[in-house]
């Protein structure tokens, strides 16, 4: 075996470090997006014991609304984001009122098929409204990318991470500090007990739906500038966000964050050092691994119920 001379080895070391840092940046960016999607899943699961297979479609709606409001109508950034989130949350509330609340015997299998039906419906709706084309919008601001130790951090990545931080801190404050948030948490722990002390559980479920789909819409908003948005983008995003939620521990806010970032970073490193073709497999391999080893997720206690 030939020895590599010292200066070259050093140079290689540095370039590998740079490469790892670059993958880490893209991993953290994607991780923040997965985390936002996973939070939506977890919140809803917490309050309603429901896994919403249409969640990815709300991300798609958010992305495409953003394309319309920010990309074609040229609204200023903040009103465009707020308008988008309101639109998606309203779609979520309508979905809850018409489809979910009408179910008389909410068994898992029935709910799975209803939400899958909703996801097909929303995809069809997206295709009718926006057509089959894929759209992209400019980054939220046109700063040049930051240079950190030779690796580049795009300005949109910074936007994504900042928006993610604001959203998750905001949610945490909402749950811990406001009366409504506490009522929602109580309702999630025990519907009956919450009802006895006078918490309107139907309203709480509605609120959970609205917040969860709003988080989906937010994920769509921040992802729109770094991807091509089209009517069929939601399924894979939804499934991966779901894997992230499972990974961290379904129903836990912190679990969703940890799961999201872990998935994003491992996926980016996998793309860099294993194969880009198998990128999508990472999430599902992790999902199977966590289900076999610790079905409750990283956060939960080991004896979490497997149902």
């Amino acid at each position, binding site marked *: 075996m030939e020895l590599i001379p010292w200066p070259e080895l050093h140079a290689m070391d540095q370039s590998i470090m740079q490469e790892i840092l670059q993958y880490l940046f893209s991993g953290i960016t994607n991780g923040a997006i997965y985390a936002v999607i996973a939070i939506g899943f977890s919140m809803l699961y917490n309050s309603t014991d429901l896994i919403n297979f249409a969640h990815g479609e709300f991300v798609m709606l958010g992305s495409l609304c953003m394309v319309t409001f920010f990309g074609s109508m040229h609204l200023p950034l903040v009103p465009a984001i707020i308008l988008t989130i309101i639109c998606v949350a309203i779609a979520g509330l309508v979905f809850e009122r018409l489809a979910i609340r009408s179910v008389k015997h909410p068994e898992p299998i029935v709910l799975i098929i209803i939400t899958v039906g909703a996801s*097909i*419906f929303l995809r069809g709706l997206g295709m009718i409204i926006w057509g089959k084309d894929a759209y992209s919008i400019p980054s939220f601001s046109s700063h040049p990318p930051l240079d950190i130790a030779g690796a580049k951090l795009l300005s949109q990545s910074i936007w994504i991470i900042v928006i993610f931080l604001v959203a998750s801190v905001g949610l945490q404050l909402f749950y811990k500090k406001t009366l409504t948030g506490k009522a929602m948490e109580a309702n999630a722990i025990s519907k009956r007990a919450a009802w006895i002390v006078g918490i309107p559980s139907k309203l709480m479920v509605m609120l959970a739906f609205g917040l969860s789909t709003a988080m989906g819409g937010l994920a769509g908003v921040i992802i729109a500038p770094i991807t091509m948005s089209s009517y069929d983008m939601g399924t894979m995003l939804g499934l991966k966000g779901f894997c992230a939620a499972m990974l961290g521990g379904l129903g836990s806010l912190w679990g969703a964050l940890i799961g999201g970032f872990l998935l994003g970073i491992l996926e980016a490193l996998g793309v860099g050092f294993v194969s880009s073709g198998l990128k999508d497999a990472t999430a599902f391999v992790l999902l199977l691994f966590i289900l076999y080893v610790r079905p409750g997720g990283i956060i939960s206690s080991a004896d979490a119920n497997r149902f």
Partner: protein
Amino acid sequence: MNNHQTRNRICYAVFSLLIILAGYTIENPYYIQVLTFIGINTLLALGLNMLMGYAGQISLGHAAFFGIGAYGTAILTVHYNLSPWLALPAAIAAAMIVAYIVGIPTLKLSGYYLGMGTLGFGMIVNILFREWSSVTGGASGFIGIPTLELGPVSFSSGRNYFFLVWGFVLTSFIICQRIIDSRIGRALRAIHDGEKAASAVGVDTRKLKLQVFVLSAAFSALAGFLYAHLVFFISPGTFSFIASIRMVTMVVIGGMASIWGSLLGASLLTLLPEWLHAFSEFEMVVYGLILMIVMIFLPRGLTRGLLDIYERANKKNDH
């Protein structure tokens, strides 16, 4: 019990007569082809119904076994020039072995967690079909799968293939009926109603769940084999997550724990897209709406739901 058996025999006799009648009287090749697809989908629904309807274990990744059957026969017949009739048992065995290995850890889960485990498995297999292009042809698909021949009989014509598929369907129906009526069938239903109770009265739930999972994988692989030699071209999209969900939908809409429900569900979900072509771009919206409405109003499936309505009407008349 005897009464039940004679009724079943009459049912199957009528069913085989109908198949023969349909095969000889229908001239339109399009109808024959749609009916052949219904047969293949019925095999898929039947296999999954054994798992979901009788044993109560959900699977959101069954398209993987469908794909293993199809890709198995495609690879063996094209790359290795094997006769399809040897590829058939090989493909089914491959699916069963995979089901056995995956089933051991996965079937320990239940409810949503089991659904997610099978979903993850199905996605991984689908990504393998797409990315392992030297073997599977990758995203562009696998072409050149040979036609089936048995001595002088060629299954290239629609009518012959129709009889082949429905022959398999009939045989599978009888096999499943016999399993359901046996001791194993009762044990499976016991697991469905309460796993702990079943194991308390001496049912080896772990072994039985694994067995029925492997059995349902075998039916899916058989359907995959028939599908591959019918259309000669397969691509990963046919075996995606959506396909798994479609199989689950066939079982639930047709009616869980009902052999004839599988036939009904498979027929409806094969015919529905054909009818919905008329809606052109509204096709997906209408399809999604129908799924939601059926599940909201008839959560126990069409067979059971319509029976419920009928029984309720009868009760009202009695009063």
